[in-house]
């Protein structure tokens, strides 16, 4: 192979399982184009019949929050337990929620 795999862009793989409603992040892989990425994702991440649908997304398209911003982004919600819906009396008739 004249082209090193390092030259192939990275893709993030999301797989939706049989009884899952959402695609979940499974991992990443290198592939020269979207079609190959999809095929490789099938081969690498669904070998044990994990999924019924696959998304691949160029890793470069992912916009991530910065670890430096962790405090301002997430700390403020730590001391607001009232946002968890645990203070309500649930009528017995409702059963499991």
């Amino acid at each position, binding site marked *: 192979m004249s*082209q090193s795999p390092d030259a192939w862009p990275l893709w993030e793989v999301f797989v939706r399982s049989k009884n899952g409603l959402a695609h979940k992040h499974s991992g990443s892989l290198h592939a020269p184009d979207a079609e190959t990425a999809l*095929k490789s994702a099938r081969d690498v991440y669904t070998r044990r019949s994990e999924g019924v649908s696959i998304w691949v997304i160029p890793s470069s398209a992912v916009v991530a929050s910065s670890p430096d911003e962790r405090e301002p982004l997430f700390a403020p919600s730590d001391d607001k337990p009232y946002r968890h819906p645990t203070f309500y009396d649930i009528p017995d008739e409702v059963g499991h929620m």
Partner: protein
Amino acid sequence: MKWATCDLADYALRKADDTLVLGQRLSEWCGHGPVLEQDIALTNVALDLIGQARGYYQMAAAWRADGSTEDDLAYRRDAHLYGNHLLVELPNGHWGDTLARQFFFDAYNFFLLEQLSKSPVPELSALAQKAYKEVSYHAQFSAEWIIRLGDGTDESHTKIQQSVNRLWAYTGELFEDTDLDRKLDGAVPLPSTFRADWLQKMREVFALATLELPDPNAYMQKGGLHGRHTEHLGYILAEMQYLPRAYPDAKW
């Protein structure tokens, strides 16, 4: 059933040998693929083929009804009793050689299984229907690599064209109608009947790959179906059969 079970057993054995030998060959790539993604892809194909081989060996053992098991048939027969096509026993060579061999075989297997899945023999049709789904993917995978390498760089184009030219002489045997096929008329397809479909597939993919199709009427190598093999099969069997032959009582 109007077909002799010994003939059906021999037929299943040939298919078993094809898929086992190619599966064994492909598994040599395990851990040696050019990149992790393709290493796993090819290993998956190898596993599918070995799974198909087991199905055929079990069928053959049941039809022979002589007490032999799938393991006896796979591990205790010598090369001259193997009835696989010469193509599948050829060495892996480089990535292009492997994928050219794979594309030739996948396309053949695809059209074979398409016909075999309509067989009135329920064992054959059931296995063919399951294998057809697997092989549809194999054929797509190998065809894409032919296109990618052919329509790739100058180097990849030259190398894959050389692989195709070198392996071409082993494709004629895939469509050889033998006495066994004729005896099983109605139960299994005559290989010559889907040669045109196979050639058409070759033309389509080679056009996309900007590759030249070798002469379909060129001289072709034969003999595998009748137990006359290349020197390569002996080495494959020696490695594959070593353990059960050296330790006949070994258990999984």
